[in-house]
């Protein structure tokens, strides 16, 4: 069985998503965490486009969704970067302090 292009996209996306989630959960350095979040997002977009590509015909609806998703991801990244800069300016560190109970 030869995998379709869509399936290759989807599987790549699943791997990227898993890598991204592992990064967001495990990495302490905040910039790397933001990068990991973006990796996770890209993985989801690949799955969204790849899975919906039946018989190798592109479907416009998931493309529109991915476009919207990219806008959301850019906004979230911008907010995260702004907060990291603020945290760095206030405390001089690029990691979150341990659970402040």
């Amino acid at each position, binding site marked *: 069985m030869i995998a379709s292009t869509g399936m290759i996209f*989807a599987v790549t996306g699943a791997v990227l*998503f898993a890598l*991204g*989630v592992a990064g*967001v*959960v495990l990495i302490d350095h*905040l910039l790397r*965490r933001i990068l990991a*979040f973006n990796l*996770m*997002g890209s*993985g*989801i977009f690949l*799955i*969204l486009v*790849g*899975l*919906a590509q*039946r018989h190798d015909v592109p*479907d*416009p*609806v*998931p493309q*529109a*969704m991915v476009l*919207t*998703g990219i806008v*959301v991801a850019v*906004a*979230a990244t911008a*907010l*995260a970067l702004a*907060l*990291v800069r*603020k*945290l760095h300016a*206030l*405390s001089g560190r690029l990691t*979150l*302090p341990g*659970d*402040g109970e």
Partner: protein
Amino acid sequence: MTAALTGLIVVPLAWATLAFLLGPGRGAVPAIVALGIQLGLAVNLAHGVAVEGTLVHPVGGWGAPLGIDLAVDGLSAAMLLLTQAIALPLAVYARAYFKADDPAGRHFWPLAGFLIAGLNALFLAADLFNLYVTLELVGLAAVGLVAAGGGAPQVAAALRYLFATLLGSGAYLLAVALVYGAYGTVSIATLLPLVTAEAPRLVWIAGALAGVGLALKTALFPFHFWLPPAHGSAPAPVSALLSALVVKASFYLILRLWLGPFAPLAAVADWLPATLGAAAIFWGSWQAIRAVKLKRLIAYSTVAQLGYLFLIFPLLAQTGALQAGIMQVFAHGLAKAGMFAAAGVMIKATGQDTVAGLAGVVERLPLTLFAFGLAGMTLMGLPPSSGFLAKWLLIEAALAQGAWVIAIVALAGGLLAAIYVFRVLRQAFLLAPAGGDVAPVPRTLEWTAFALSAASVLLGLRGVELMQLVGGGG
């Protein structure tokens, strides 16, 4: 009716943008006036839904799948009503809370407006993808509000919250992608028959991902780690908005999916959310009993109270279980908004955010303490409060199904709530330490806190209409 539908999204967007243009710290008066209008629209909509049933509106006449449909039923109408009913008094409170030069209030109004717009859009969304977008809008605005406190602890809490919320909505978006891949649609209404007919393994994975992602956003135990720092370190009006409304948005979404597209899958795992909910009640209450800081105590109480919402899942076959959940959403929303508002007054007056620092508050701020007590009454579930009604319905549904464990957990949770509420009240009734100065506090703050808490108690007397709205349209 469609004017009310779109108005509930457009009006908060308009005043949020206006507040942004007016500049830091400004825009309170337009916001309060507009929230009054929104409350009217929400009442109008709830009335319309009660009479005519579910309403669908294709925005701009485009229609799904490329256009966006808005839909409102009894459940959404109730949530819209609650959102406006809590936001309006909190806006009045926030106007008095943030002084003109307070850096914490510089960006409050635009962010609050975008938050309310996002919440309203979420309750009106008719497909899974729009739910994702609105969920992100709510999350980003909420993170901004937490960070607006300005200090390093607030920014750190905001970042922690941001990563939790992005991870949660990422898992949810992946679920949406899998559902679209399986069925080629994301409309909630068309999905249910498709999932009932055939649910491939992909859809099971999607259900699990959506469940975990949204549980993270709702701060269900053991995913609650981000909530206490975020809700405990934000300014009081922000904490109140977050605890009363924002966590309810993702709960609403879980409920919506559980009753809708994922209903055929949900029956398999219905004890899981209830077990986690019960753990949340005990763990949250225990942490609240031990908390040193007043707002931390209230934040952990939110973790516990959210647990009740998840107790209803195994009981949804019984009449009244859904109503019990919605009544708990209302009871906790109003009471927690009132409690954070009252705590904000006490912290402003005593100058410190500790339970120990409350000694003597009873003499200086009797009205505020009364408001705190009334909210506590709802959290404990004493009659005639709405909390009592919610617990009553829950226990009734549990006993009808023979699930006496759930009834016992609900009763035990009420006792634990009594311990942490009385811990605060007892401290407040102690004699004031000599030389302890109490700063003057605007009366508006005390009265709005009182109004919210009183509403949470009085709703118990008028709960029938609300339950009819949810039961009839849902």
